[in-house]
């Protein structure tokens, strides 16, 4: 399909051009809005586009430059936010029909405010799976988001709108959330970069919850430089988020210049290889061969980790939505409501055991990182599937297609590790596939160093 993507510059370049006066912020915003107008009939990435607000914000940036003021790092860069981040003056839908009745947000979510303070210009909110319990973004209330690489195929979920908006070139960067893979799955299917930072790194304040003990947030971008720029801007202490940890910031752009030669890198084998199609295995083989990665590591309890993440997500999600399920169950997508209710009625001992297992599994994986700095694994078991695919064959078994999209992401996010999902090289006409680069907690700098090395080596798209 014809896409405006390639004609819209990346965030770093836009900001540089605005700073140097080669383009105005107003022009950058108009280009983004024009791209949205052209692409949305095919992609359906947005649930709200706010052109007038974006134009007013751009005018403020241009006035700053005209006055000779120093411009912030994202000056004039259009961005979008998954429609679970509060944006002042707008209702946070979280992909639901129910939330339409909520009052508009009175302040921006912490990360939205961070991007705006850095000069970013919010052009709208993006489509998502209802209440973020989803890997496909086939939203029944707002329609499915289509993969920019192939119409009628999933963009992944639940942050599918953000990923599609970035991949289609509607915006250079976007915000997503990732509980079980909701940044990494759509990044893989759409062929872009996505970052799920260490659990507790970024403030979640103002992001509509799903699973309080696992939820995380992060950026999408079309190139690593933009991902690093966004991550550098998004970090910062938020005294109002009890989940956030006080840690020194990761300097992501600087880390891209670190030497990767000394990093100890291994491929996650076993569960992660068994649950990949031959096409995905071959793509990851190519990545490992290009970087000379011949060591493998196995997590013997990866299947149990995925299972425990599944149980905790269902239980906490079900409990969180209990009032809505009691009184407005028929306003949910029916199957999603039933999944949440099944989670809510799980025996308490199961959920407690899943949390105890989480602590135990964390200990085991932490030990693994004594000998390894970065682990490599495919992000998704397959490339994007057509909308409505109910089952697929994986590892010799017929499995539910939508839920299994996160089989390779869940065991990792379950224990809060930082992950960059990066696009692998593909031949013309092939759908994208992403690879996960995984580090020990608080070691995002190692991910950016390795990803930069891989990009320079041609091991990434």
């Amino acid at each position, binding site marked *: 399909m014809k896409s405006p993507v390639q004609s819209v510059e990346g965030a770093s370049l836009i900001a540089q051009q605005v700073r140097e006066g080669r383009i105005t912020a107003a022009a950058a915003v108009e280009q983004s809005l024009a791209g949205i107008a052209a692409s949305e009939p095919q992609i359906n990435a947005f649930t709200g586009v706010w052109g007038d607000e974006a134009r007013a914000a751009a005018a403020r940036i241009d006035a700053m430059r005209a006055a000779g003021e120093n411009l912030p790092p994202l000056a004039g860069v259009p961005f979008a936010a998954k429609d679970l981040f509060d944006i002042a003056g707008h209702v946070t839908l979280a992909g639901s029909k129910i939330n339409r009745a909520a009052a508009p947000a009175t302040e921006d979510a912490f990360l939205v405010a961070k991007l705006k303070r850095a000069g970013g210009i919010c052009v709208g909110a993006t489509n998502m799976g209802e209440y973020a319990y989803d890997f496909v973004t086939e939203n029944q209330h707002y329609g499915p988001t289509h993969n920019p690489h192939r119409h009628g195929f999933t963009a992944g979920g639940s942050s599918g709108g953000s990923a599609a908006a970035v991949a289609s070139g509607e915006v250079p960067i976007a915000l997503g959330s990732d509980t079980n893979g909701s940044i990494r799955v759509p990044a893989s299917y759409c062929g872009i970069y996505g970052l799920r930072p*260490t*659990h*507790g790194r970024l403030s979640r304040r103002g992001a509509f919850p799903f699973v309080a*003990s*696992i939820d995380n947030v992060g950026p999408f971008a079309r190139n690593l430089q933009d991902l690093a720029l966004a991550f550098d801007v998004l970090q910062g202490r938020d005294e109002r988020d*009890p*989940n956030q*940890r006080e840690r020194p910031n990761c300097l992501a752009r600087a880390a891209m210049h670190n030497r990767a030669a000394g990093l100890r890198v291994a491929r996650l084998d076993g569960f992660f290889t068994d649950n990949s199609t031959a096409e995905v295995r071959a793509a990851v083989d190519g990545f490992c061969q290009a970087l000379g990665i011949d060591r493998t590591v196995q997590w013997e*309890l990866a*299947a*149990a980790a995925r*299972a*425990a993440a*599944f*149980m905790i997500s*269902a239980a906490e999600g079900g409990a969180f939505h*209990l009032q809505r*399920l*009691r009184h407005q*169950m028929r306003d949910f997508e*029916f*199957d999603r*409501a*039933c*999944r949440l*209710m*099944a*989670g*809510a*009625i*799980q025996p308490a001992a*199961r959920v*407690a*055991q*899943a*949390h*105890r*297992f*989480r*602590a*135990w599994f*964390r*200990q085991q994986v932490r030990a693994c990182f004594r000998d390894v700095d970065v682990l490599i694994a495919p992000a998704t078991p397959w490339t994007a599937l057509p909308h409505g695919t109910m089952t697929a064959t994986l590892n010799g078994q017929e499995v539910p297609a939508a839920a299994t999209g996160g089989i390779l992401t869940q065991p990792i996010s379950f*224990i*809060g*590790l930082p992950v960059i999902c990066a696009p692998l090289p593909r031949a013309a006409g092939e759908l994208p596939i992403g690879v996960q680069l995984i580090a020990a*907690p*608080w070691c995002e700098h190692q991910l950016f160093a390795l990803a930069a090395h891989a990009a320079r080596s041609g091991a990434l798209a």
Partner: protein
Amino acid sequence: MSQPNNHDVVAASLAALDLPTDADVVAAVGAHFVRLSDVASLVMNLPIPDDVETPSIFEP
């Protein structure tokens, strides 16, 4: 005494939480509950040591 079937267990559990118990809901929730139970079997029999404690806020 006869064992309650899955439908009864699901309906009673939903009722205990004041959740809807319409027939179509109980059937659909029951299917998901069975799937969750299958998944849970991977975790419930693991030999987790007694000294493993769950932090009140998860630490990565």
